[in-house]
């Protein structure tokens, strides 16, 4: 790896070189300063669960209020075309951590365990001097790992790792611990602030992984009546009982769609409130100017679109996620929106590049640092979406290629392939497979094959 420990011989060489340079007046001051670890920014990555990209105040939701997330977007960059390469909790989370597709890191669905040999960006940041913390939802199959390079690991295993909104028992560095606060987002935010606010010499990297807004969508007491009278912006094809038909009950959504949707919005409002509390804390502690804050969701969610509930399918509601980066001093023109396609697998290489680490060939994502620094930087042309069958959820295995204006989807089993023109038909209602030009189809299939084989074009 690129961050191998420095040897005694290397130290002696460096000291001799520095002495010589100092004696001759050739000491490369700025270069040396750039290597000092206290020059590195702090990093906070906030990951929410099932948060749809269009469910933010600043993305035009008709009634959902998210002033703190809007503030974050106003002080950073809101990526309007951010996606996940697998729209399912465990694989997507592993992709954020490793910068790899699910077929590479091996967490293919919610049944396949995390491989301990997987290298996370936390581990690599630790090697260059970061204090690291993982706080919140781990939710990957198998036993809780001994995460290498993580100084503080606070998580939960209740309900198969999903945790629970109220009175969720925690596991703090391997020890069962009751939570201090009753509401889980409150508790996790407290612990995040405690970690970030600690006196330290090193920069820190905090991975705050919230249970919200996963089902069963239980808001805090004070938000229970919120949005009760709001007109819901549900899709025309959505219906009340889409939650309980055609195997949808496995998504944990028994009950009317409208009831759950209101609670979803309330839980997101609570997320926004606690993000605001955390941002205020960074301000008060004087950490905000040297802390990069990234907010993202692990996948989207269907609220009746395509007559579906839950996620997994390769439709826009499911694969798009909110992705906001606030990086004081790093972003050119903060408050802007970026249209380049970015992915969950881009997080790790971005953070590594910020810390001066070469991502290396094992990482399949690409750093978005150039886009942060220069708005005109071109983004990727196409990327691979993959979903591995996750029994008993009624979704076939999927391979798809998403370009800037097309998505071509292949299914395992008997479901026929689909092709959509996303500019003319953003809601993906007209499958173009029966009228597609043969050359275009061959091109898309070739692209899909290349992406599956090599992870990039």
């Amino acid at each position, binding site marked *: 790896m690129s961050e191998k420990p420095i040897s005694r011989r290397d130290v002696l060489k460096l000291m001799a070189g520095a002495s010589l340079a100092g004696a001759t007046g050739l000491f490369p001051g700025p270069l040396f300063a750039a290597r000092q670890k206290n020059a590195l920014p702090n990093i906070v990555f906030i990951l929410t669960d099932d948060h749809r990209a269009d469910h933010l105040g600043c993305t035009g939701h008709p009634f959902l209020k998210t002033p703190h997330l809007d503030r974050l977007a106003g002080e950073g960059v809101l990526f309007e075309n951010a996606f996940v390469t697998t729209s399912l909790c465990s694989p997507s989370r592993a992709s954020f951590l490793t910068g790899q597709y699910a077929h590479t890191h091996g967490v293919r669905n919610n049944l396949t365990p995390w491989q301990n040999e997987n290298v996370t960006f936390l581990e690599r940041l630790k090697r260059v001097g970061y204090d690291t913390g993982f706080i919140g939802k781990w939710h990957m199959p198998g036993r809780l790992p001994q995460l290498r390079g993580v100084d503080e690991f606070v998580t939960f295993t209740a309900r198969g790792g999903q945790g629970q909104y109220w009175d969720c028992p925690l596991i703090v560095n391997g020890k069962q611990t009751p939570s201090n606060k009753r509401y889980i987002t409150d508790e996790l935010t407290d612990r995040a602030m405690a970690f970030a606010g600690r006196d330290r010499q090193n920069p820190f990297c905090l991975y705050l992984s919230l249970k919200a807004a996963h089902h069963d969508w239980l808001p805090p007491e004070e938000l229970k009546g919120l949005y009760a009278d709001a007109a819901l912006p549900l899709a*025309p094809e959505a219906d*009340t*009982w889409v939650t309980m038909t055609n195997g949808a009950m496995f998504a944990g959504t028994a009950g009317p769609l409208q009831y759950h949707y209101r609670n979803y919005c309330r839980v997101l409002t609570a997320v926004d409130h606690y993000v605001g509390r955390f941002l205020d804390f960074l301000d008060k502690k004087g950490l905000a100017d040297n802390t990069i804050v990234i907010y993202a969701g692990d996948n989207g969610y269907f609220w009746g679109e395509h*007559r579906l509930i839950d996620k997994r399918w390769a439709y826009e509601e499911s694969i798009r996620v909110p992705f906001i980066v606030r990086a004081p001093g790093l972003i050119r023109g903060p408050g802007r929106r970026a249209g380049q396609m970015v992915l969950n697998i881009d997080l790790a290489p971005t953070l590594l590049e910020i810390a001066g680490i070469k991502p290396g060939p094992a990482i399949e994502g690409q750093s978005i640092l150039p886009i942060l620094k220069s708005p005109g930087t071109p983004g990727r042309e196409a990327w691979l979406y993959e979903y591995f069958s996750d029994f008993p959820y009624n979704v076939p295995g999927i391979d798809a290629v998403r370009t800037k204006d097309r998505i071509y989807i292949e299914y395992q089993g008997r479901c026929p392939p689909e092709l959509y023109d996303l500019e003319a038909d953003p809601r993906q209602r007209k499958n173009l497979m029966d009228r597609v030009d043969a050359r275009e189809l061959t091109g898309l299939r070739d692209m899909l094959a290349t992406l599956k084989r090599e992870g990039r074009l």
Partner: protein
Amino acid sequence: MTAVAGSKRRQFGCWIAGAAVLLMMAAAKVLYNMPWPELAPALHQPAAFIFALLLNVSIVFGPSVIYPLGRFRGAAPRICIMACLLTPVVWNIWEIIRVTAYFSVAESLYYGLNPLFLGALAFTAAQMGFWEAVYRVRRKEPGEKAHAAGPIFIVLASLALVYVFCFWAMGQHWFYLYQAGYKALF
């Protein structure tokens, strides 16, 4: 009318009730899944609402129609039980066939043991037990014991199973056991 013919007619009446509920379930399932948004967008919301409701009600509460109807008209318990099981079993077979579009045949068969189906079966048993207890209390002669302890036990045991399959931690505990079974088998 002979006693045998009368008995056959009573059994047949029970099957008719079972078939009516089955028909309602099948029609509701087909009609719910019609492409309403394309065919008749204005009808989509009310149609989907009504047919999904009928679908779920026929599966979940069908036995509360079939069992008392059959039993109070003199059908044997065995016939009433079979008539009550008809709808959930056919629904489950239909679901198994549907998911073969995504899963292998073996996986699809295991899918048939999902907690929702087991919960539906247990709730069917609970309803049958309840109506059998009611039948015994109502039909007992003055001074005779009702002998309802057995059916009441079935009600309680079945409701406990419904809780375990569907409501224990919102159904998640049993669901994870079911998934663990899948992992062990496949």
